[in-house]
């Protein structure tokens, strides 16, 4: 008995009569010689060959043509115009304004259709919804909304467009200082002082944590892979000292556009060799919105393909 082969199957699938021809992919579909009403193709074979017509575009749908005045068979309809760009936007569910998170130059000739994107500029326990907006011939399209989602994570993360570092052990987020410049002037002829305020209004905080590389593990009870830890920690220290804007987020729900100030510190652990306690100070340098993210290079909007990663999203 060979599993999957049936000598007396209803459609004559017997291995004795039919030569199994192996195909591993298809790249073109051609139709002719009939009047076509609808065409649907899906990679999910759990859909049975029932005569019901498809109602929606699924995650593994390959083509769905309805011949209703256009030869569109994809999940994007632009009345025959080429889609130039697709944007991902995000907002908090109780907010109104959408914030650009990523943009993608869309190129249908690449034959890609599964897109994946990772949003790292989020607040812990905020409630978000996402949307996709296509653009064709300078026309902004209809918005596709996601279900709301609430991120939940532990630890402190520092990220920019390319890197994402997590600190999780022995974290101490020290008191967050709100800097508002002011001066108290005491005129000699007055009982009370005069208080003058500046425009400064930003946060300053410092973080201390024990850094262990993401793949770090304890060998023999209390030994680490010292070489691996050194390489990972050096990368983190370089990241802290690269003078570039970063996104700081922590388990308390703080998400800030920051840069590192003062001197980051490494304090080697006294019992476990190879790992160290890291401390550094951060200063908030701006709001998180489309304009500042674009200006600080944390988001690229309306640029060419050169920063596209393998999945198509520039992140």
């Amino acid at each position, binding site marked *: 008995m060979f599993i999957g082969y049936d000598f007396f199957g209803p459609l004559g699938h017997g291995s004795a009569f039919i030569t199994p021809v192996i195909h591993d992919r298809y790249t073109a579909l051609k139709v002719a010689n009939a009047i076509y009403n609808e065409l649907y*193709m899906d990679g999910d074979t759990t859909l049975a*060959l029932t*005569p019901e017509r498809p109602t929606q575009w699924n995650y593994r749908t390959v083509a769905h043509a309805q011949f209703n005045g256009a030869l569109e*068979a994809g999940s*994007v309809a632009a009345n025959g115009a080429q889609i130039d760009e697709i944007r991902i936007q995000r907002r908090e569910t109780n907010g109104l304004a959408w914030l650009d998170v990523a943009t993608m130059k869309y190129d249908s000739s690449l034959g890609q259709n599964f897109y994946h994107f990772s949003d790292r500029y989020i607040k812990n326990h905020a409630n978000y919804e996402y949307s996709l907006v296509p653009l064709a011939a300078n026309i902004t399209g209809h918005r596709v909304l996601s279900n709301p989602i609430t991120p939940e994570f532990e630890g402190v993360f520092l990220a920019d467009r390319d890197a994402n570092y997590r600190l999780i052990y022995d974290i101490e987020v020290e008191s967050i200082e709100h800097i508002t410049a002011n001066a108290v002037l005491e005129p000699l002829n007055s009982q009370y002082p005069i208080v003058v305020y500046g425009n400064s209004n930003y946060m300053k905080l410092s973080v201390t944590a024990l850094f262990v590389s993401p793949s770090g593990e304890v060998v023999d009870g209390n030994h680490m892979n010292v070489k691996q830890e050194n390489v990972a920690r050096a990368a983190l220290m370089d990241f802290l000292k690269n003078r570039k804007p970063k996104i700081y987020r922590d388990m308390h729900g703080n998400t800030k556009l920051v840069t590192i100030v003062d001197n980051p510190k490494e304090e080697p652990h006294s019992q476990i060799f190879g790992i160290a306690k890291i401390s550094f100070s951060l200063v908030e340098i701006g709001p998180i919105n489309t304009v500042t993210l674009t200006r600080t290079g944390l988001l690229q909007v309306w640029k060419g393909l050169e920063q596209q990663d393998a999945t198509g999203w520039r992140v």
Partner: protein
Amino acid sequence: MSRPMIIAPIETFSATVSKQIDFLYSGGPQAISSHLIVERVSNNAIVYNATISTFNLFHIIPANSLINGVEYRARIRVGGANNFWTDFSDWVVFKALSPATVVVTNIDTQNGDKVYNQSILFTALYTQPEQEPLNSYRFLLYGSRRNLIQAYTDQFPGLQSSPPLTLTQQIDNLENNQVYFLEVLTLSISGAKSTSGLVRFVPYYLAPKIHTTIVPLNVKEEGSISLSANILQLIGKVYGPDGALVSNVEFINNEFLDLTRIDYNRAVFEEGFSINQSDFVLKFWVKNMVIGETLLTLTTPDNGSVDVICASNRIIVEKYYQSKSLLARYATPVLTIRNNVIYMIGVMQRHQMIDVVIVEEVS
């Protein structure tokens, strides 16, 4: 002794209409007449010299007393009782100019004042008979209730540029099917103002749509949210029997594509079409199949194929290995294939084996 003073500057005006020249006068006897002299600046010729008996402190130059495109200067004196006259006022220079016309040119007025995009570079044509150069212009955008939405910044075409001039303004983010009004205001170098008036327009465009769903997912270890979507733009192409691309494909009732027509040979989905696995479910709804011909072909990169063929009384699926060297054949049970009936033909491949069905659609 007091003398009158013409209120300056005198705005540029068209000589084809009458013009009121206002002046100030106080401190002397009651004015009962005013005497205005207008000279041509270029040759000092007096072109207008008249006295009007009036108590009013203005003097009206009748229409067509002056000529458009010419620079003039004017002075005035006031007469009182007993043949009393004040001294003349200072000269005030002004210019008579034909009115300019400003016409917005890229609104489709034949078709309900439509514009066909969300972002439009509006153009307006500015003409002025005496070729008076333009100092500046600006566009104003109004909403459907003629409420001002935005006044765009002044633009300066440069004094060397004489009419006719094309004035442009980029306007973005227009809402689909909303009524807007556009106005163009111009200011010439001698101060003549003109306007296009409020011009109605309606943006009309087809906005792109994505039919996909996006699925957000929490990634705790990375402190991030990952999003996945299936986005695919797939536009089919119809070719004629000579292999030439058909540019304007006609559909029947926006419901059917007739590939039995002699001028339509086949429709091909290629750019953007890709399935990187052997398993698939394929369903299509057709009528009036041509007996003995191939209805549908799926092609692999190495010239393998899956062909769906309409035989006289059944549907046959033939599967070929590279360049048709190896064949497997599958078929539906026998049935009578009739015209003008919609059939659902389903093909499913699993474990390299194919199921094929044909079902008459119950209408």
